[in-house]
């Protein structure tokens, strides 16, 4: 069993990934984060390595398998069916919003353009879901 982590960040854009990591590190939550640059690597971590993060931050527009397809796949497998997934994307398109919830997302957040807002949005989302999905107590 892999080392338990807090957040799996699925994000293809290196700049966004860097800004996200930076914002999380400044958020006061200090979560442990693993970054997967596409859906395949995310699946590799979750299915092959059995990684069980407390939260998945998922970008929709990914090279290859899309974010929504990945989400559907997670929801169809026993091990990941209840894994909290927050869609974190640039899009404000209604169809992306409804599509995400339809595929089983737990929450949907648009990436604000302004960096302060960006950090604040991330902090709220992560604080909530990390609280909901507590890390298993370390074995005594």
């Amino acid at each position, binding site marked *: 069993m892999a080392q338990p982590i807090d957040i799996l960040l699925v994000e293809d854009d290196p*700049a966004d990934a860097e800004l996200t990591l930076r914002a999380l590190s400044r958020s006061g939550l200090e979560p442990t984060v693993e970054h997967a640059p596409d859906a395949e690597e995310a699946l590799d971590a979750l299915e092959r390595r059995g990684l069980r993060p407390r939260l998945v931050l998922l970008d929709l527009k990914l090279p290859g398998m899309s974010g929504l397809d990945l989400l559907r796949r997670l929801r169809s497998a026993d091990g990941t069916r209840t894994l909290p997934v927050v869609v974190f994307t*640039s*899009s404000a398109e209604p169809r992306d919003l409804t599509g995400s919830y339809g595929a089983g997302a737990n929450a949907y957040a648009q990436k604000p*353009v*302004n*960096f302060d807002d960006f950090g604040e949005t991330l902090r709220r989302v992560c604080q909530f879901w990390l609280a909901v999905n507590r890390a298993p107590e370390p074995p005594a």
Partner: protein
Amino acid sequence: MTDRFNLILIAALAAAGLLVLGLLLRSELTRRRDREREARRVDRQLRSLTGALRESVVAYDLDLRLQFVNPAFTAVTGYATDELRERNFIDYIHPEDHAAVTAGREKLARGGDPVDQEYRIIRKDGQERWVSSTWQMMRDDDGNPVGYLGTELDITEKKRGQSRLRDDAELFQAVMQVQQAVAEAGLDSQTVMRVIAERALALTGATGAVVEMLQGDELVPRVAVGVEAPAQTSAHRLRSGLSASAVRTGEMQRTDDAAADPRIDRRIVEHDGMHSIVVVPLKAEGRILGVLRVVAPGAGAFRDRDARALELLAGMMGSAVSHAAAFEGRQSRLEDRTRALQESEQRFKHLVDAAQEGIWVVDDRGLTTYANQRMADLLGHGHGELTGRPIFEFVEPAARPDLQRLVAAGTGELRAPRDVRFRRRDGGELWATVATNPIVGREGEFVGTVAMVSDITERKRAEDRLRRTAERLRALHELDQAVLAADSPAAVGAAALTHLRGLVPCHRCTVVLYDFAAGEAELVAGVAANAPIPGGRIPLSEFSPAATLRRGAVRQVADITALPDRPPMIDRIAADGVRALLSVPLLVEGEAIGELNIGAATANGLTPEHREIALEVATPLATAIQQARLRAEVARHTVELERRVEERTAELREANAELEAFSYSVSHDLRAPIRHLGGFAQLLLEDHGGELGARARHYAERIRAGAREMAALVDDLLSLARVSRQDLVRRRTDLDALVADLRTEFAPETEKRGIEWQVEPLPAVNADPALMRVAVGNLLANAVKFTAPRERAQIRVYPVESDGQTGLAVADNGVGFGMAHAGRLFGVFERLHRPEEFEGTGVGLAIVQRIVQKHGGRVWAEAEPDRGATFYLTVGSGAAD
């Protein structure tokens, strides 16, 4: 950007729509114009067709408004067309005939057959004329009645002739009776005189008749019948008076008003009260024997024909009395009696042979006992050839029952004259009016009939022509209607042929259109032996040379089997049984576009009248075919245009989908780099600010500000595009609640600034609440923004109504703007202030306008620099219920 493409799409669709509509309208207009032109043409055609007619032609619509009269009608009635228009239909009919004419019209209106009637009309000058008329219903192509068409023939002369004929027949009867009385009475002159006096009384309607014989210079009454004053029945001397004049001159004397006649002794008139008097001398062999005097109390009681009758009777009496006198004087001699009879008979023959009418005497079985010369002439027989033969031999079988009634046994009054069709010896027809009178024997028994026969063949032919003309007019009218209603050349051709078949012998009739470009002719419609001929194309070479066809000449062949070199076309037609052929060109603007072919099954089967009809039909037919072709072309263009519009629409729809995808990618992709610019610039400032110089920090600040602006711009553009795309969902939207809600959003800023809000009660509107929120929100935000420099900012919101629409106005006391720039106010990226002064992308009012336009509403502004601005917003469909 989506926005602009939408505009292009809308503009393109609108342009295409207008073009189609224009074409449709044009074709509709053309149609209507054509119809009006057609109506005028039909009117002209009617006019030219009826102009030369001796018969009156008149048309009324269903409400009996005058539609048309020909010159003959105005000539007969004496009214001008306009005067006729102002009068009622019934006004020119004789009052006694109103009931019959109205009944006839009502019968027509109920769908009855054409009505033939005779009635009197009253001319403008008060004169009365008899007309024989045919009234029929005009119908449109669907068989719906549209009006009445009447033709009238003036038959006043004929009517007069008929009454003369009746008079003559009466007279003749009297003569016959006298003849018989004379024969029976032998030489009893007293009886002869009495019989003649009685006939005179009956014939003339006189109240008294006296026969006075001359003895010396006295007139001695011998017979008096009817009312006669005693003074007149005694012998009196010839001094003055009518009797004296008659004896002296040997001429008939007559007065129509004795009281005013200087020849008559006033006392006598006063005594016996007779005002009408006729005195006829009785003559024999040039000698005056006496007088026959008839009297009646009323002035003007006798007519000319009475006088004529009296002369005739007096002549017969004179002869009879003279013979009787001779007999009485010298004892009877058989020869005398025979001579008297012969003389009388001679006189009678003389009279009947000189008659203008045929006189035909038959016995009780209808066998001819006598026919005069005129009668024989009328039938084309020699004198005497008729004698002994039954009268029925000389009439058409169909006329026999009528004639039977005329010569049937009876002793009654004169029979009403009838029109009977006789057959001439040469097989021709003789139409005649026959008036008859039974001849009664001594015992009152029926012994035979005398018939007066008057030739009316010419009039009958005129009536026939009239009826045919009326039928032709109606058929042409119907054809015009049918042809105008048809919408393809084939349908036009078929409609024309259907109606044509009732007018000309159509053994094989076709409508052929030339296609000079293809060198072919197309048979668009045809009937042969009552069955339609399938359409088809025939090489033009089977017709005449193209140049000849183009010129369009009427070709008529009395018998095509007699043609020396027959083109293959003619051979085929001949094989179908056609003998006579008539080909009429269909001319459009002087050029033949095709031809109308009429083939009759018998040689010489096509008359000049048929040719005339064909020419009449060809004109509307050619016009209608040309119109149908043009209509088809317009329709083809319309279809093509519609197809292209659809193509373009599909292309545009595709482009629009692409644009949506584009806006999606803008929202996703364009925002990311902006975020990165701003994000990293901020991290640079926050994490490494200390390491940077003041200038480097300033640059980083500029990068961050630029990114923020760009983000706002992209967001606004996206919301503009979304507004354009979004479907309208109208609901009752309470502007009061909307404004109150929006104000709370501005509350943090407005409370800090102490803005004075003045919000009046606002209406509810039928609009999309989400979009209205965006629009009104923009207006309020602007008011808040542009009042920022004011110490006492005032914003007033109040209801407005304009052009039946409701909405609100937002007035502020902000910086305002010059109305010169108001036109740019609602454009995208248009700003009337520098960005340093007021934040904003210049998209807000463009969004407002887009939203209002989607609602069919209006937004406009009034402002003055530094004096504030007022924005008005109204939405389309008014207040919500």
